[in-house]
């Protein structure tokens, strides 16, 4: 392995194994449809829309401050959130419930509009979609004020707070609690997960957010790569388990190998 830079051999092997396993499940075993495990937060969406229908109040969706679509950390969260928006909008169109989207992300507006329009179309109600259902408010504080003002006025029955949230998760989550809304949260930003767990009824933690997006979009590449990830996680757990037992016995071969 002299051609691989010293000290980066295991890193290289790890990357190649991960990519190979993912490719296997994305491309070669394409015929088999992989299913994402039950995600309580996803299963709760019909309940959230049903609640809104009963109470005659709207459903609210927002992806949080996140960041531009081309941000490698925040972009994927916005895309997963928009997949979930499609599912929520279809449920709302089916139940005749109003859905409002407030978002601070300029570059994602075309995608959100396109997604909601398609969702209404899929339910045979293209005329029910009004672009004004999407409210764009830039910058964190105005966005927060806009959302809290909307909560005071419309008192949504259910809030879908999924995406790359920052500290607005605390404020919106708590304000949603105060008006008694049922809340489904989800983020891959570790720093906001505690607040979502504290203020939401259901939460998609970390990768569950992307899995939910894949479960809805049924994108075979996404599903295949998530299946591949799971397989590599099994390998990882085996290494940790074996390494732990050997480590406890004073044998450091695995730790030494990992450091090469």
């Amino acid at each position, binding site marked *: 392995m002299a051609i691989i830079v010293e*000290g980066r051999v295991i890193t290289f092997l790890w990357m190649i194994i991960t990519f190979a396993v993912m490719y296997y499940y994305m491309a070669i075993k394409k015929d088999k449809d992989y299913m994402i495990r039950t995600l309580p937060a996803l299963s709760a969406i019909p309940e959230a829309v049903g609640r809104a229908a009963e109470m005659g109040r709207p459903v609210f969706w927002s992806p949080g401050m996140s960041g531009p679509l081309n941000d490698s*950390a925040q972009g994927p969260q916005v895309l997963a959130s928009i997949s979930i928006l499609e599912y929520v909008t279809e449920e709302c169109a089916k139940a005749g419930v109003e859905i409002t989207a407030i978002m601070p992300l300029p570059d994602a507006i075309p995608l959100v509009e396109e997604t909601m329009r398609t969702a209404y179309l899929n339910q045979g109600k293209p005329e029910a979609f009004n672009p004004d259902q999407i409210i764009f408010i830039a910058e964190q504080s105005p966005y927060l004020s806009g959302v809290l003002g909307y909560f005071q006025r419309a008192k949504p029955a259910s809030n879908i707070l999924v995406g790359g949230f920052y500290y607005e998760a605390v404020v919106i989550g*708590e304000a949603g609690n*105060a008006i008694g809304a049922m809340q489904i949260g989800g983020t891959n930003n*570790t*720093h906001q997960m505690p607040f979502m767990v504290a203020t939401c009824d259901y939460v998609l933690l970390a990768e569950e957010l992307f899995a939910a997006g894949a479960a809805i979009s049924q994108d075979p590449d996404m599903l295949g790569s998530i299946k591949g990830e799971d397989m590599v996680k099994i390998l990882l757990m085996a290494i940790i388990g074996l390494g732990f037992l050997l480590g406890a016995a004073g044998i450091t071969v695995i730790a030494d190998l990992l450091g090469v």
Partner: protein
Amino acid sequence: MSALSKLANVDSRVFYWILFIALMVPFLSPIGFPITIAENTRDLYEGITDDEVEEGDVWIMNFGYGVSAWPECHPSVTVCTKALFREGAKIIFMGPHYDVELTYNKIHDTVRDDFVDKVYGEDYVFLGYITGGESAIAQLASNIRSVYPVDHFGTPLDELSMMQGVNTHEDIAGVLSSDTGDYGVHFMTQWQAAYGSKLAEIGIAMNGSTDLPRWQAGNYFGLSIGSRGGAELEILIGELGEATTAMDSISVSHLLLIFAVILGNIGMVVQRRSS
């Protein structure tokens, strides 16, 4: 609704007023609870003092925080700047926030005595604002002058004596990164993991939970967590400052919050029982 169950629904503004006033009281009559030093903080201080730092070593100090996080990060950065200067190290100041110049001016104020006998261009330089995330920090490791052709004041780096022969990660003895955002993590993935560079995080407390496993795994040689870390560093250097002053307010506000949490939970239990 019984009085106890009302506890579960006190108007938030009541707490906000109490909190804001409670934060002020200790400034007017300080209490001064004892502070023990955490192992991670001691590792940081010992990693930038005595034989860990040689005369003339060039260090990077990344101001990865803006004016809003001054109370959280600046006391620790102040102590670490003093410690490095007293060991004869040279410091490159930089940062990814628009107001990095204000933070640079503030370090001159809080480290005034140590700056007296230091000369700009020989003992320290200020490269100024940087943006571009992981790409920028990766490129900094490879070629500082491609990211910073000139310093903040427009002086070409080649005209600054301390920057002679300093252009890649190999020429940097160590990096101290103080972050509200991700630049410290970028230094970890693109400097420490890639080249084994000596790196420590002067972090905000919120990131303490993600930074601690990294200090334990050896990615950071030391770690300061929030204003509490600042107070510990002030004790280690023997010059109490802003962080120590703030600790009393932190104590009062934390007790208040725990009291409110208990209140809320009692209210919830009572509400459950009555319904």
